[in-house]
């Protein structure tokens, strides 16, 4: 059952930041609340102050620039990303990923920022943003700071957000030429939470050239969304072959630190990672060649 709390719905970012500063330590921020309210209903989180930022139109934008890349306000809903023509055009992988995130109802109300701040290692947006080399802007009364998406997650449901800070924007740099990105999650029923998920981006030196840059990100494979850096290393600078991708899969599977739970054992998750890294890598490669 939800505890009683004092409710604020600031109309401007400044007002919101002021409230965060004022109630440091005792507040929770609610955006779409699609994850938060589940925990509050179970009585697991009992904030004294609830700061509702859903109405901050300042953070509700998608801006795209061929030079600077993509900027997404943290309150943009999953569905808005899924349906945005600009995003479909330039970062199709984001729409693809959102399309399979939870249910339409959740996507309609839940925001990308809320999803990231929830810090669930099984979430889909984080690994995709990591493969896209995304950064986040965290804002407080003191000012702004930037952090790489891959550095944002500290542990299960723990992020780098300091008291008084709020995630305000997500930035994605423009994709270099000959870059392909793919993301797949494995689940038993469709559009469910990832048992494991794998995102790969590959940048080729030329259409059939060697791998100039590669990023591999894993979902639900460790206490936080993680980058499989050792697996990347095996591909970087080389001409990618099936064999090499299989090797990357093996390595990523060893790098990962998955748990056993009712949905899959640790061993099985590792098996899946091997297969998925290879498959998603193949897809990314194909896309890189086509781009």
């Amino acid at each position: 059952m939800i505890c009683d709390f004092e409710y604020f719905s600031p109309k401007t970012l400044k007002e919101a930041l002021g409230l965060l500063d004022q109630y440091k330590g005792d507040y929770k921020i609610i955006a779409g609340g699609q994850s938060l309210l589940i925990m509050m209903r179970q009585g697991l989180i009992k904030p004294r102050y609830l700061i509702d930022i859903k109405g901050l139109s300042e953070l509700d934008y998608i801006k795209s620039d061929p030079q600077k890349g993509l900027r997404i306000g943290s309150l943009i809903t999953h569905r808005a990303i899924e349906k945005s023509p600009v995003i479909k055009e330039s970062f199709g992988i984001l729409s693809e990923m959102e399309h399979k995130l939870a249910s339409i109802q959740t996507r309609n109300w839940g925001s990308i920022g809320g999803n990231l701040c929830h810090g669930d290692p099984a979430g889909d947006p984080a690994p995709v943003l990591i493969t896209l080399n995304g950064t986040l802007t965290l804002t407080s009364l003191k000012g702004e700071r930037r952090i790489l998406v891959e550095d944002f997650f500290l542990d299960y449901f723990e992020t780098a957000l300091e008291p008084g800070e709020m995630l305000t924007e997500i930035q994605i740099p423009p994709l270099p030429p000959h870059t392909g990105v793919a993301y797949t999650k494995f689940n038993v029923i469709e559009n469910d939470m990832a048992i494991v998920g794998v995102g790969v981006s590959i940048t080729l030196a030329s259409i059939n050239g060697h791998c100039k840059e590669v990023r591999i990100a894993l979902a639900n494979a460790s206490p936080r969304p993680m980058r499989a850096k050792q697996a990347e290393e095996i591909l970087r600078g080389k001409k990618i072959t099936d064999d090499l991708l299989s090797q990357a899969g093996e390595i990523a599977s060893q790098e990962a630190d998955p748990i056993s739970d009712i949905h899959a054992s640790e061993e099985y998750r590792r098996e899946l990672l091997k297969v998925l890294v290879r498959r998603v890598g193949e897809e990314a490669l194909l896309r890189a060649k086509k781009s």
Partner: protein
Amino acid sequence: MNRKYSVIGKSHIRVDGYAKVTGQAKYTFDMVLPNMLYGKILRSPHPHARILNIDTSRAERKIGVKAVVTGKDTLGRKNGAWRRFPELCDEEILCREKVRYIGDPVAAVAAIDEEIAEEALDLIEVEYEILPAVFDPLEAMKEGAPKIHDHAERNINVTRRIEWGDVSEAFKDCDYVIEDQFHTSSQAHLCMETHCAVAHFGYDGKLTVWTSTQSNYYIQVLLADMLGLREGDVRVIKPPTGGGFGSKFELDSAQFCAALLSQKLRQPVKIVLTREEEFIATKRKTPMYYYVKVGAKKDGTLLAKEVRVVTEGGAYTAMGATALYLTGFYSSLPYRWPNYRYDGYRVYTNTAPTSALRGFGAPQAYFAGESMIDMLAEAMKMDPLDLRRKNAITPNYEVPGQAYIQSCGLKECYDAIEKHIKERGKLPPNRGIGIGNYGFMSGGIFNWFNTPYAFSAAMVKINIDGKVDLFTGACDTGQGSDTTLAMICAEELGVHLEDIRVHAEDTDLGPADLGSWGSRETLMNGNAVKMAAADAKRQLLEFACAKMKPNVVYDLDIKDHKIYMVDRPERYVSYFEIVQEAIRAKEGQTIIGRGHYTPHRKGMVSPAFGFGVQAVEVEVDPETGKVKLIEIVTAHDCGQVINSVAVIGQVEGATMLAAGGGFCEDQPIDNGKILNPSIGDYKVLRSLDMPKTVGIEVDTYEPEGPFGAKEAGEGLTSPTAGAMANAVYRAVGVRIKDLPITPEKVLRALKEKEKLKEKK
């Protein structure tokens, strides 16, 4: 068959349809009564513990709390549906001395709102002495295992043997004998409306309970017994029920605690179980350990089958005793085994009690049985469909000492499925089609509930305007029995469906009926309704006869509001006219017809059986083990179809539930705790997972059923898991003997197979 009906055999909008698609249907969940309180139930966090003390004083002092009850406030009686066997009535509902599973109720609170009631639960202090617990039935059967009930040695709750022929001798005559073991998982019913009840005990000493149930008669009798009331002082009303699937025909904690609290307070009390309670503390599907041995002659004649089953009973008997019997019986179907032996043990464990779930022991039996038939066919290098067809039950077959089967459309089902498989042609790699078949009862004959009433009864009342009130105790839980019964009534009486008003919700109004389980309503209640309608019709025809003065060789009948001479249909009088005249002539009394049905001389199990054959096509990803359901085609024999759209709904709905059980639904338990008590963690098929389904109805006529109809409800859940296992085997060559068939199990099996190959 050329049978001309004017109402049945077509699709009709259901009688409850308009209310349901407009949101006007009022469920128990929606009910609010003046001065109503809200109840919550405190449940045991321990799988096995002695209650040393319960201190409710702090909870009672909380503002807004009106009453707290514990086992001490009860009469100390034990509840159970197997009332012929007192030792099997073993559930106190509010525990007095011991708790036996995580979720066992220990106290209940009534307060002015749900929130206060829930907060009050935290204020009740229960002192437990934790006892050693046992969770696996095989462990629980061992000497020295913790004893869960004093009366049950080695925790054995019920044993069953079914036997005919001489199995041991027969195996000696077999050319092929194989044996193997299987395990089936638990499954949650996941009714969308959780168990709930509103109870109002008046100052007149009479109790009214509105509840989401599959049998208002059972609830009436069981509540009366537990509270020490006369049955007639307990009125149970069933608003539309948001799903049952086997979980709502036993007295549950919501009903009992609400009634007990209301008895104390004389105020209405509402209890709605949370989804978590629904998962951990209502009954669930019975997990079973299966050992099967089958033998056949070279020519494909099945000679002998031996089955041993141990079921995980959970803490109480519930309806699990019936599941133990039925799974043993179904293990013999749908084949003509000359020699058969079944030994079943139901064992108490410190887990949530297991009971009926759509299929009632059949899906477990057919998973093991149909897997074995495919394995045997492979050993014999025989086509599995041919092996089945060769040995399948044919019409007018007697299952020795058990059942008399009259109609049986299995042959036509095999033909239809064979045609389908041929049409599919050669499949791409990693695809496979597996088959499974089944037979299932149309209502049970057994009366362990010990009712003195007929199993089903109905009353038909014809009013002055020709409108018909149909009173029955049948329980529509969504399957559409109200509509089916109204159609049967309309057909028999020669009126339109719109003329019928069904009153099936109230024990004060309708005659007793055992309720909606065991696929019994169409056949059993349908027979009672048909008889009642015929009784009313005969009364009308008496007056029509007087008016029409036909020659004695002419029969009269009614159709489409016309009372006519059967062989001279152009001579008729209006139904409405005769109704008015008849009522006048009867000194103003309405026409009342009565009907009842209890099966007689139909064996031990059921008066009639539905049959079917199912083909499941899957695609397996050999690298991840993921199984994708491609298509499920079911040819089935439900006798005469009453409402076509409802039958299609049954085929698809059953397939979904059964495929879920085969595919992903499971309730893993650790130290007695169900690990996935939320819909987020308990995975079910959703629209994207649901494969294409095709239902092919085979036309038969069941002499025992109303207009030739029989079951189309639960039997359809039976073949799927076995057919899936067979399909996976055909796709990638691994056999999964442990449900559900998860990707992880398939991959593990594939890897083991690879290892074996390497060794060779």
